[in-house]
């Protein structure tokens, strides 16, 4: 018997008697014979904890990640420093082994934390409303576009190529099957081609999407984008990196109606891309269209402040086929993770981390320009902590760099055939001047 099963033989016997059957088999007797599995599952035997740990360690050691290699990869997932206290708090079973706070009176810990998360997210993005989390950025954008459709009654959305290509693929997979038409706009110098945008946006447009920073790391002129959208009564949907908002003006202050995206940069482990944190925040006007759970403050019988899940009439468990979204389980623990991170860093810390990332990225770009002749820079747009370089034989170069201890960038060709030999390079506050120097040195050596 496994250590996870508490049943003793005596108890099993007593329970079978209480039920009035002879064996456990009897409890499965109504499964028609033809539907029964008449052989053991073809899986290995169970293992002791020690053996499992060995086997998992073997697998883990076949990976070489940011602990072994210097990580200059970004594109939505970033190698920021994660303060130790976060993991200690997340490891509290009182948090992570609870489920959705359906019974509010014994879930105040989770509920208050969600309320704080919603507030922090609103503060950071300049929005009025945040839900309790979405799965991840791609599906968050899907839901945002769905909201825009519901709000405007229009079915056409405009997404520049500067929005993360994977988000765009997810939108294509899902929104296209929801009766939404997706229009793409090219980029120019690393930002959205505003002229082309103006051409395709019209009064059938439900939403214009913008990345902030965009996929290339460039800082789009959100205000201009907002104007284009708002002029025709469309919404501006922004996919933002929340950590960058330590340095960049809140999208809400530049005209965004919905801000969604990937929250992994808020102290969440990269973990091969998941579980991460989809987030969704919007202006008050969209409150009733927000998918997923929302926590609200209220009072108990004695007048004490307390928190509950609220506005549930939007949700699937109440509205079923009339719900705006099907989301049920979300990413609550990752929202807690981000909440603790934002609390630890606070006003000054989030600015410092964003600034250091900005500073180091700009330093690296400058040094590359000065020291590595083989590197060129296709874009001159302002950027945060991520930029595009062009190098000969980019893909082979990446492998060579990895062998020498550096994850050098994300090759862009797979999404942009026109950007063959282009790499997207991200720099976080974790990279030291020495690391940046090594990067230049290595790239210089490998390209000369």
């Amino acid at each position, binding site marked *: 018997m496994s250590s996870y099963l*508490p049943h003793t033989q005596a108890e099993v016997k007593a329970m079978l008697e209480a039920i009035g059957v002879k064996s456990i088999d009897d409890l499965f007797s109504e499964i028609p014979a033809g539907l029964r599995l008449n052989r053991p599952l073809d899986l290995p035997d169970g293992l002791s904890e020690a053996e499992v740990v060995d086997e998992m360690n073997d697998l883990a050691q076949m990976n070489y990640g940011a602990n072994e290699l210097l990580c200059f990869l970004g594109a939505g997932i970033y190698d920021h420093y994660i303060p130790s206290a976060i993991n200690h708090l997340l490891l509290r079973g009182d948090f992570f082994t609870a489920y959705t706070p359906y019974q509010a009176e014994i879930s105040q810990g989770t509920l208050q934390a969600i309320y704080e998360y919603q507030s922090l997210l609103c503060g950071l993005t300049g929005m009025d409303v945040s839900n309790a989390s979405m799965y991840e950025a791609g599906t968050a954008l899907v839901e945002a576009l769905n909201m825009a459709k519901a709000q405007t009654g229009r079915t056409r959305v405009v997404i520049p190529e500067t929005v993360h290509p994977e988000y765009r693929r997810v939108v294509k997979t899902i929104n296209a099957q929801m009766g939404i038409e997706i229009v793409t706009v090219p980029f120019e110098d690393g930002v959205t081609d505003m002229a082309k945008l103006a051409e395709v946006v019209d009064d059938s447009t439900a939403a214009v999407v913008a990345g902030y920073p965009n996929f290339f790391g460039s800082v789009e002129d959100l205000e201009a984008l907002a104007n284009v959208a708002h002029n025709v009564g469309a919404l501006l949907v922004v996919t933002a990196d929340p950590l960058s908002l330590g340095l960049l003006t809140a999208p809400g202050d530049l005209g965004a109606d919905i801000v969604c995206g990937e929250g992994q940069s808020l102290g969440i482990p990269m973990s091969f891309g998941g579980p991460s944190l989809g987030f969704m925040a919007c202006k008050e006007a969209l409150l009733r269209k927000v998918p997923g759970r929302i926590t609200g403050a209220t009072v108990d019988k004695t007048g004490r402040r307390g928190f509950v899940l609220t506005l549930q009439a939007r949700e699937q468990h109440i509205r079923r086929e009339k719900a705006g979204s099907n989301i049920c389980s979300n990413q609550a623990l990752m929202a807690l993770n981000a909440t603790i991170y934002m609390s630890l*860093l606070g006003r000054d810390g989030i600015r410092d981390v964003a600034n250091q990332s900005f500073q180091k990225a700009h330093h690296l770009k400058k040094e590359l320009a000065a020291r590595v002749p083989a590197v060129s820079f296709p874009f001159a747009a*302002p950027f945060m902590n991520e930029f595009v370089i062009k190098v000969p034989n980019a893909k082979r170069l990446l492998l060579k760099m990895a062998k020498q201890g550096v994850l050098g960038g994300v090759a862009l060709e797979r999404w942009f055939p026109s950007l063959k030999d282009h790499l997207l390079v991200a720099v976080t506050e974790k990279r030291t001047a020495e690391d940046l120097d090594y990067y230049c040195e290595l790239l210089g050596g490998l390209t000369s």
Partner: protein
Amino acid sequence: MTEPLIFELSADGRRGYTLPKLDVPEIDPADHIPSKMLRREIPLPSLSEVDVVRHFTRLSRLNHAVDVGFYPLGSCTMKYNPKVNEDMARLPGFAAIHPYQPEETIQGALALLHNLEHALAEICGMDAFTLQPAAGAHGELTGLLIIKAYHRKKKNARTKTKILIPDAGHGTNPASAAMLGFEVVNLKTSSRGGIDLDDLRAKATPEVAGLMLTNPNTLGLFDENLTEIAKIVHGVDGLLYYDGANLNAIMGWSRPGDMGFDIVHVNLHKTFSTPHGGGGPGSGPVGVKAHLAGFLPSPRISFDGKKFKVTDKHADSIGPVRTFLGSFGVLVRAYTYILTLGAEGLKDASSYAVLNANYMMRRLQKTYKLAYDRTCKHEFVLSGKPFAEKGVKTLDIAKRLLDYGYHAPTVYFPLIVEEAIMIEPTETESKQTMDEFIAVMEKIAAEAMTDPEKVKGAPYNTPVTRLDEALAARKPDINFFKRRP
């Protein structure tokens, strides 16, 4: 005692973080980013590390959780979440890898995904799996996209407009179908608690794209007519979708693939012991029969006998349903669990889950009204209706349970049982734990008859007493910066 908000603990100038000194020459952001895009105000609080640690420690202590006590929340499979799973997910070789690393540097991660896909396929009797979906509902969406793609490929997209869903089905089922523009057709539940076959036959028209079924269903009952059901639905070229939320009842005993299902999603955060995280993250991998494998979301993982690869060009694929390959950390936990239990252990889990549920059902049916008096699987549904005469509702009983240190069962679901109380003990609970819970349930039943006001006023021993949900909904206060005065 209630806890101040993080904002109320803040004082300007405090800090809970440290950063190395900037070791590159500092430049002025204003020289590089237009000033209107440079942030002035950040309305985040400022706290020291000890403030933050205390705040969240204290908050955590206001929670009930599986680690704190019994959590018989039906349909959610609140089983024990093994601690070693947490350790494994935190190994740097798993936690510190980036999704865009070269394949050569992530062979261990890809091997794990590949192995997990195969283990799930074996457990479910399916031929191929995707691990992308982030939760059960996301799995449903993925499955329904596959159904759409299947009919599109057969050029039937236009006509295949309906999805059949039993009235006992989970809210996500109709919501998922409706999101994709399907018309939802509800199926009646028979007196045995299964699908009403006549109703099904009547509704199985050529427009039916598929049927979404939970089995055992949300009443905890196994539908004995599955073979017939499959025949009927397949007869109109509908696909059978299995909502695997209740897979914990049948592992090693019966497989959705063998029951005739074409598509299945499983909830790793239920059956496979990954923690619920206060609401998530979950993970809802989707498996299909061979004839649908081509539709699975790309990218997919392949193995050529030497090297694991991520392949992205699949002509029929519905495309990615999310960024990256799945909730990897959750997948690591589930894989650890499967390695730990093995073939026999997984079957044991289901056996004892079902034993526990039947034991509780038989004991509790003496005090509460049992909705369907049959052998159940992993859960069962009572009704709190007997206490209506005293004005005591299921909600009151649920709240009173909190006073005794328990989480309440799922209440008011499934919708087809009045005043439903849905109890799922899971296999990790002992007879001792269940006996104590049963005794409390009996005590509350007695209280409901003799002192109904007591029950209606519950809870009393919780960090806060009953909360005003109406106020919360009427005057939403959901953001500290726009709070209700």
